[in-house]
């Protein structure tokens, strides 16, 4: 891939990540700007410190925003914003 191809691929992921961050901040009413959350930031426990109630809220929000149902209780989906992006935008997943 050329440098421009790589920039385009990175922009696609960063757009999805930005959409996820905006959704998290809005749905959970967090007092921070979405851009403050980094793509690699852990969402639960250490990191953004979301809890199990927040997970339920995010399940609903993700389905409404991205049309993707995440009901398999696989917590690794929430390992980071970028990991979540793989699941809500299949074009980003490593196998794509």
């Amino acid at each position, binding site marked *: 891939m050329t*440098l421009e191809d790589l920039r385009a691929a990175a922009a696609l992921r960063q757009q999805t990540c930005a959409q996820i961050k905006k959704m998290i901040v809005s749905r959970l009413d967090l007092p921070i700007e979405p*851009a403050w959350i980094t*793509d690699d*930031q852990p969402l639960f426990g250490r990191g953004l410190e979301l809890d199990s109630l927040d997970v339920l809220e995010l399940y609903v929000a993700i389905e409404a925003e991205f049309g993707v149902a995440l009901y398999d209780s696989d917590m*690794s989906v929430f*390992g980071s914003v970028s990991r979540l992006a793989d699941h809500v935008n299949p074009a980003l997943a490593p196998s794509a």
Partner: protein
Amino acid sequence: MDSLTSPVKSAHPEGTAYGTVLDADVALRFSTLDAEYEAIRERAALLDLSGERIIEITGDAASAFAQRVLARDVEYLTAERCMTSLVLAEDGTAVDQVVVWGRETGLLLESSVGGGTRLLEHLKANADAGVEITDRTAEFALFGLEGPYAWGVVGRLIDGELAALPFESVVDTQWDGVDIVFARTGVTGEYGYKVLVPAESAEQLWTKAMEQAVPAGQEAVELAMLEVRQPVMRHEAGEGVDVLEMGAGWLVDITKEEFIGRDAVMAAFEAAAERRTVGFSGGDTVPAAGTPVTVDGEQIGEVVHAVHSIGLGSALGLLRLPPDLAAAGLKLTVGDTEVTTLTSPYVTPKSWSTPII
């Protein structure tokens, strides 16, 4: 200031390999990296965290001082809670990453491994009237238990009810009749616990713990930390590298109105970023820090730090890249090797799918 050594060094397994990490002489490997890593990721590992300084902050102004020097909000941190925070310099670079233990009489700050002297000097240089800063390291030993079955070890050694405490809880309790401070916190993404024990009982308790868990040295711990993108300060926080470039903004409460380094962090946040950090894997050879990252022969960044990941079976590390290329899923060239940038965590901890029973 003297280099730290472990108070339980004489009880370490025969053949333990030691090395210097900043201001501390620590166990790098007790046995083999493979065995210790396997204990962290598959069973339960025992960590000797004696390379971390324990610094007590007390006095009438302790709370206000802690709020000023810590990048996270500790105003409501009770004696039953702990949290991880960065300590920043005025220029927004990281002085250290600490675990803050709430205590009735003030706070305990646990430095990163080998980072204690620098932390202590920074705290003293910024001390206010009404604050006492005391290095308590020699009075304690600090042990860690990490792994998907570390909760079972806590149950067998101390008390099963402690294993399921909420994350970042702190409890004053006893272990074999010895007063200890117990916390549920860790760094590898697995179930993690820490035990602060009096130095005079440390060897006795370490020996007991060795019967239940495999001791793991600094190399295995740092590998496991990198795999879940937990910052390893000595590799990631270089001169002139701000916390946003490190990707450690999550250890800063930017909603807190005032703390040392806040203005610099805010300025960096509002300015156009020059570099960002992203993980990568690929190849069998571990590239040195500073190895160029290229695309079609053009250098676009460099390696921050890399190791061989046992979990991935390849080199694993961090790259500093321009922001418009700092994303997962890209094929880049590091040295002569093709690598792929990654989403975090790079290895999914087994504890995430292992219930405490």
